[in-house]
């Protein structure tokens, strides 16, 4: 379940980051950008690469919030049942005897 969530967060963000990278750096030249009033000193390749990961991180944050907010009340509230007695399919269910 955790790996699935991670994939749901990272993958759409990756796609969006690719599109953002393409559009943003087609329109703006990294060597003409300023950071806190100072021109960026890094090479274009470095800025493209860092830019890509910034876009990816932002997209991931958005996907993370989507995943976080779409959880049902049952996932958010504390469950009254012991973990082994939770119904089948419940993400919080654990096999009987596995974790006491």
């Amino acid at each position: 379940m955790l790996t699935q969530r991670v994939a749901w967060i990272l993958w759409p963000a990756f796609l969006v980051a690719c599109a953002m990278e393409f559009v943003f750096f087609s329109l703006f030249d990294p060597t003409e950008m300023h950071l806190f009033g100072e021109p960026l000193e890094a090479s274009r390749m470095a800025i493209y690469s860092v830019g890509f990961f910034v876009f990816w991180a932002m997209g991931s944050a958005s996907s993370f919030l989507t995943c976080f907010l779409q959880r049902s009340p049952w996932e958010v509230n504390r469950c009254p049942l012991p973990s082994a007695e939770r119904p089948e399919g419940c993400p919080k269910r654990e096999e009987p005897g596995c974790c006491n």
Partner: protein
Amino acid sequence: MAETKPGAQGAPVSPLRPVPAGAGPETEQALFEVRRKIYPRAVHGWFAGWRWALVWITQVIFYGLAWLPWNDRQAVLFDLAARKFYIFGIVFWPQDFIYLTLLLVTCAISLFLFTAVAGRLWCGYACPQTVYTEIFLWIERRIEGDRGARTKLDAGPLTARKFGLKFAKHSAWVALAFWTGFTFVGYFTPIRELGAEVLGLATGPWETFWICFYGFATYGNAGWMREQVCKYMCPYARFQGAMFDRDTLVIAYDRSRGEPRGARGKKADPAALGLGACVDCEICVQVCPTGIDIRNGLQYECIGCAACIDGCDQVMDKMGYPRGLIRYSTENALEGHLDVGGIVKRFVRPRTLVYIAILTTVVVAGITALMLRVPLKVDVIRDRGAIVREVENGEFENVYRLQVMNATEIPRRYRITVDGLQGLYVASDAVVDMPAAGTRAFPIRLRVPPGSVAGGSQKIWFNVTAEDGSGIHVREKAAFLSPKKEQN
């Protein structure tokens, strides 16, 4: 697709047998789901031949084009560091963004058109995911054997032989993935220099990173993820249905001919046994790279690779039945029993005509714009420091900054002239030598004799003309400021 109720007239529907997730010994927890590991069986035939042809064509282009020289440079190079794209004889600058946009729109509309006519042709034959999975599967087969041998190998304990085979397979995969990553980066940084750097282990940090990143993505996607990319990660797979209609060619199982399915001897008469043509050998399921049963009808997981057609045709040949129990067909053809001519006739329909009209417009507009494109760009910026000053003889002078971009690959000399005001002339050097595919910015001083200006801001024109008679010419508007008369 119209469903027939069990018991109603016509062929009975084969019941869907849901398999609980996590069942069976071949189950593994993969990235996206509890996944039944798929061991696609090798298939030969007409469509497999086409897929391999497409693998060759796309990969000869991909791996080869990066090495093709053109005018002492790489023929296709997206030089991100210099923000110039070289595509054969043309150099594109960031200002030419519109062409890239038009190209992407063309690709998208072509995809829609192909999909409307013949389903997921792209997915089944040309998508990099399909192509690399095919190549990686081929390596896997060469080393570990076909479906049966692989299933047995995976189920068995870790022996020296198993370790050796797995090691050989992954080494071959990694080598190919690395080469793919290297080629990919070679489209963004000159590949010959990059090759020398790789051999000398002297690649830059970002180049190293992106070679590894792309290589790892290839290895992961084609070696491990495979059909999961199509089933869970690809947005196109989810919306391709929007382009489908009842006349779209899809891979379809001819239910009316196949059902009721059942095993029988080669010499048995299916009519006497009350059976259809499907011998229920499950070859179509075994060859399917996404592990679906096409006999359950069209599913979004089907990437349209036609492996099941090849597989089924072989079985039909063995049984002495006519081919095409699984075939490319349309919903209308299956129901109305249209012949091939009828299917082809219906390729022309409002949906495809609209796609063709948009596609033609975009392509014609793009090519026309490219033909009329002037390989010279001029920006005029007024000097912010001095607005206007009076010089000797009472003349007024304005200073501008000219940004000239020579988008051709030939060094050229340009002459700058001005008009729009009587007596206006270029007081600084009016000739500029431009390097090949280069930009230059320089100040330029314009003067006008006293008495020939009305005062205030007046429209003038800069003309930048190539001196070599090539006819390259740009006319750019600017404003000339002079003091108002009453202030004199």
